[in-house]
């Protein structure tokens, strides 16, 4: 054991507290899915399950959810490809404008969402592009790329190049080395990045407002319902159901990529 016992106990307690902190609002959200009143006041005086059925049958909500899923998948795939490509390029080659490119990737996240939204909107208008799912995907991909990029770069920085050299020495070609050596080392970074990117896209509302046109994604639908306040519990029901629905995929995704770590000696 490397860490002292006191340290380990301290870390366990800290972890527990942080997890509780992360989930306190989640518990509140779930509680309010069963709130009979529409305004969110405390304490809850009346409990009910009457909101579940209308929510599930809400056509607007279902269309919005489906659109959000499609857009998030599209944006994440684009981000995975472009983000890791960029990370490899920046990591391996020293070329002019290296820092500038990293800076450009950060922009969609650093700038207020409305700037990206307004810029893209006028751009699409100018080039006569029809607003639809693809404009949404492009809008989301702009800020999803940096997430993958940052994660992969951070991982590549920590990966010794000796591994790749050893692989080459042992007779593997470029593609084999990539498949058997490089990919496994960055796989966790890719998966956690993809999950983050998907979540960010799924949840985005500002840029989407400018790139969506007449369609609604789920966050826009939620925003609308929060505004009028008369169907607030429906929103809580939707979130509750989504949470339940994502436990499995996220668990599987994490399991798929948990490797023993090439450089770890114990586990």
């Amino acid at each position: 054991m490397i860490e002292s016992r006191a340290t380990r106990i301290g870390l366990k307690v800290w972890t527990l507290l942080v997890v509780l902190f992360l989930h306190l609002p989640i518990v509140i959200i779930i509680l309010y899915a069963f709130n009979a009143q529409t305004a969110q006041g405390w304490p809850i005086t009346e409990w009910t399950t009457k909101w579940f059925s209308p929510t599930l049958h809400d056509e607007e909500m279902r269309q919005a959810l489906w659109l959000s899923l499609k857009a998030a998948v599209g944006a994440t795939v684009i981000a995975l490809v472009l983000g890791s490509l960029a990370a490899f390029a920046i990591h391996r080659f020293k070329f002019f404008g290296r820092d500038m490119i990293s800076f450009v990737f950060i922009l969609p996240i650093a700038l207020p969402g409305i700037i990206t939204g307004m810029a893209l909107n006028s751009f699409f208008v100018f080039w006569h592009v029809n607003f639809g799912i693809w404009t949404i995907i492009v809008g989301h991909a702009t800020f999803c790329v940096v997430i993958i990029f940052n994660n992969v770069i951070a991982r590549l920085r920590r990966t010794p190049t000796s591994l790749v050299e050893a692989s080459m020495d042992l007779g593997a070609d470029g593609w084999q080395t990539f498949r058997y050596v490089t990919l496994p080392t960055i796989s966790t970074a890719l998966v956690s990045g993809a999950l983050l990117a998907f979540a960010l896209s799924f949840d985005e509302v500002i840029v989407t407002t400018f790139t969506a046109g007449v369609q609604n994604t789920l966050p826009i639908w939620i925003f609308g319902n929060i505004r009028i306040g008369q169907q607030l519990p429906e929103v809580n029901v939707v979130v509750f159901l989504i949470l339940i629905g994502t436990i499995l995929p996220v668990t599987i995704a994490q399991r798929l990529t948990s490797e023993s770590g090439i450089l770890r000696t114990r586990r």
Partner: protein
Amino acid sequence: MRAFFELLPPLAWFFLLYLAALAVLFVSAFWSVDPFTTEVVHTWNTENFREIVTSPDWRRVVYRTVGIAAAVTITDAILAFPIAYYMARLASPRMRTLLFVLVLLPLWSSYLVRVYAWKVILAQNGILNWSLEKIGLPAANIGYTNTAMWLVFSYIWLPFMILPVYASLERIPDSYIEASHDLGGRGFRTLRSVILPLALPGIVAGSIFTFSLTLGDYITPTLVGGASSSFIGNIVYNTGLGAAGNLPFAAAFASIPLLVMAIYLLLARRLGAFEAL
């Protein structure tokens, strides 16, 4: 290697489009609007920037935004490090999966709804004051204040800090730490001289998210902020859109986060920790 270069053009293309769109927008920061028609007039001037720099109100907004973004980043780094360390190096595979899921799950529950939940917690008759009252403490009036915003932002972006730090801590070979111990470095010394420097890229990567996401946000200030909580994003939104949209001014104001991020990334590079940037 060849396939590599074939795939780079779409990457370049993608960001060139985005840059072109941005460029047109920011160029308009040097223009102004005709007060009568509210049409944008293409006369070059730096009036917008002068107004931002000389107005104490606008300056206050910028300092507030940057200040809270920094506070959130530091808070999240402190909160995230121990849990990331535990997840990466001490937890069993089953526990690690569980923690991974627990950390990511809040991200799936809609940013808007989570912030709304905090409203319920922090309101005057909300859960926080109700709990404090139950144990005999005075009410903490942090609803609709900058403290509330700092708290909510730290909460919202925490997973974005935990995951990159986890990713970088996970790759530290045990041999490094064992070697450090063998050389006489105990606990804290090993942490300071071996673990932290190796984890720094992850921390910096996470900090870029927390800092920039806070810098550009305007929804949380709108929902949980009070009377003196306007962020840069709020000003850009309020002045740039709609009935009297002063797009040039909004574009000028929006160039501030751009500048701040440029400085931030420069500093990150200077620290030598994030060589890629």
